[in-house]
């Protein structure tokens, strides 16, 4: 495995990050603005700043094909940014929510995007040509608490949402005139808007931090504050799932996860490094950390002379300055995203965290 490519952008937490399709543009949410970085050589340099939100930006997503950027913030607004010759032009989207927006993602079709919020609703937004504005429809039932995370099914109709009421749910966000009728799947056949295709709670009931559909869309994995990962394989509409596997770990909770392929999951969170899980319907197991700490760790070991040791003891009352973590990330990882995938398998993924770093990992 090649060494991870770390970019230390600034000393603020990164709530969310997103790369453009050609991987030359990187958007990161920093405080109440979104910063755009451009790759030059092997570094990223600041090129643009999207200002408009009044409070902390909680989500940012670049549409892969159209290049439009959607952002959402605690000021309860979402903006769609389009590139014009005179710069980035924002369009306000009326979300009709009375609490912070917490998470935003484009659907794979790029016709819609979904915004999670603290108002116990998910706003599914689509563009209406006639009126030339973005309309939002609310997914409401049966959400009992703040939506913390969202994930789209490859068919752009099914939407998975994780909430602080500890439930992971799969909804239909079918909008007439925007979506084409999806193929029937294990999640459901007829899918009018707000159909609940699945509602899952694991035994130890931690509030959900991250969730993701498998590449085929036939399985859902979610992770919560109980340091466990649950994988659900649905059987048929209105039926209990074929298998629901819960993998409890000995680590601190994970914040985000992605599927590497149908049989592998990458998860990262409060332990500051990504972990790999492997399995299938019959069982899942944590195989270990992805980070190869022997390399950078050995490089960091400096000359340890007696003089140095006593000087450190005199100055700091300790022989070694152990303020640095062994991991690439120096603080909690908040987002894991696919960076490069080929033939249904992820080759590279990117992580961002509270330490202001964006790291690109090669598997």
């Amino acid at each position: 495995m090649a060494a991870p490519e770390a970019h230390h952008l600034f000393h603020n937490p990164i709530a969310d990050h997103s790369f453009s399709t050609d991987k030359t543009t990187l958007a990161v949410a920093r405080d109440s603005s979104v910063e755009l970085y451009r790759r030059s050589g092997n570094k990223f340099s600041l090129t643009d700043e999207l200002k408009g939100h009044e409070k902390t930006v909680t989500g940012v997503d670049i549409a892969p094909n159209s290049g439009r950027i959607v952002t959402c913030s605690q000021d309860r607004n979402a903006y769609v940014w389009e590139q014009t010759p005179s710069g980035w032009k924002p369009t306000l989207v009326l979300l009709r929510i009375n609490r912070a927006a917490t998470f935003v993602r484009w659907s794979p079709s790029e016709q819609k995007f979904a915004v999670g919020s603290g108002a116990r609703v998910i706003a599914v937004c689509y563009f209406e040509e006639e009126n030339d504005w973005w309309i939002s429809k609310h997914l409401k039932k049966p959400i009992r608490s703040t939506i913390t995370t969202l994930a789209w099914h490859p068919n752009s109709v099914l939407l998975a949402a994780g909430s602080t009421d500890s439930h992971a749910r799969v909804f239909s966000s079918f909008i007439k005139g925007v979506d084409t009728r999806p193929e029937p799947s294990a999640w459901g056949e007829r899918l009018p808007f707000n159909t609940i295709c699945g509602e899952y709670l694991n035994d130890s009931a931690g509030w959900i931090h991250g969730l993701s559909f498998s590449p085929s869309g036939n399985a859902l994995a979610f992770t919560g504050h109980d340091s466990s990962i649950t994988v659900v394989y649905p059987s048929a509409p209105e039926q209990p799932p074929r298998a629901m596997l819960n993998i409890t770990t000995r680590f601190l909770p994970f914040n985000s996860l992605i599927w590497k392929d149908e049989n592998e999951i990458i998860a990262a969170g409060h332990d500051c490094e990504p972990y790999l899980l492997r399995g299938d319907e019959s069982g899942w197991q944590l195989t270990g950390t992805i980070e190869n700490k022997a390399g950078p760790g050995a490089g960091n070991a400096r000359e340890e002379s007696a003089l140095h040791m006593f000087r450190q003891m005199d100055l700091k009352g300790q022989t070694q300055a152990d303020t640095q973590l062994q991991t690439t990330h120096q603080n909690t990882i908040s987002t894991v995203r696919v960076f490069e995938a080929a033939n249904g398998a992820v080759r590279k993924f990117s992580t961002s965290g509270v330490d202001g770093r964006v790291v690109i990992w090669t598997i």
Partner: protein
Amino acid sequence: MAQLNYRTINIDVLDPDSSINFPMDTLLPATLPEPTSSNAAATVATQVRQLLRGGDPEGALRYVLDTAPLGGDDRAKEVHQAAVIEVLQGIRQSEMSRVLEGVCAGQGASERADCLMKYLYKGMAAAPSSSGSKSVSPQSTGGFSQIQARNLGEGGGGQQMSVLLNWHEKLVEVAGTGSIVRVMTDRRTV
């Protein structure tokens, strides 16, 4: 009409959207075992004592953790808690690691480890059994029912506390920090 002091009205109770009106039972999984009574818990306690006397501390601990009354009433939980503490105190320090490795192996190992961690925290939170009813004024903590009056480690409680802390240290080595996190999130209280 009687004078109503509007300042003393707890408006959160009247707001259906308020967090205090959150239905906590929605966080209980469907796999929750049947409610058990304190009589059943007492029977378990007798069996555990027999196992312990028979020189099988590992079996005793395994049995008492597998029969935890997750769905029981407060009384059943109290009786069971006493049985768990008895087992923990009945195991010598030199045997702890061996017993723990045995208990945290095989099927349902992670559930047992998490269950033991719940009992350790509950034991540390509860007032020592010697001074029974002398608990600090009960406070409604709303969400976290596992956190009760704090044991300040006086008198007989001090010894029990040191046993629990020893077990805690050993258990974290085996089950990791994830187990502690699960004590906080899990609504299936012991």
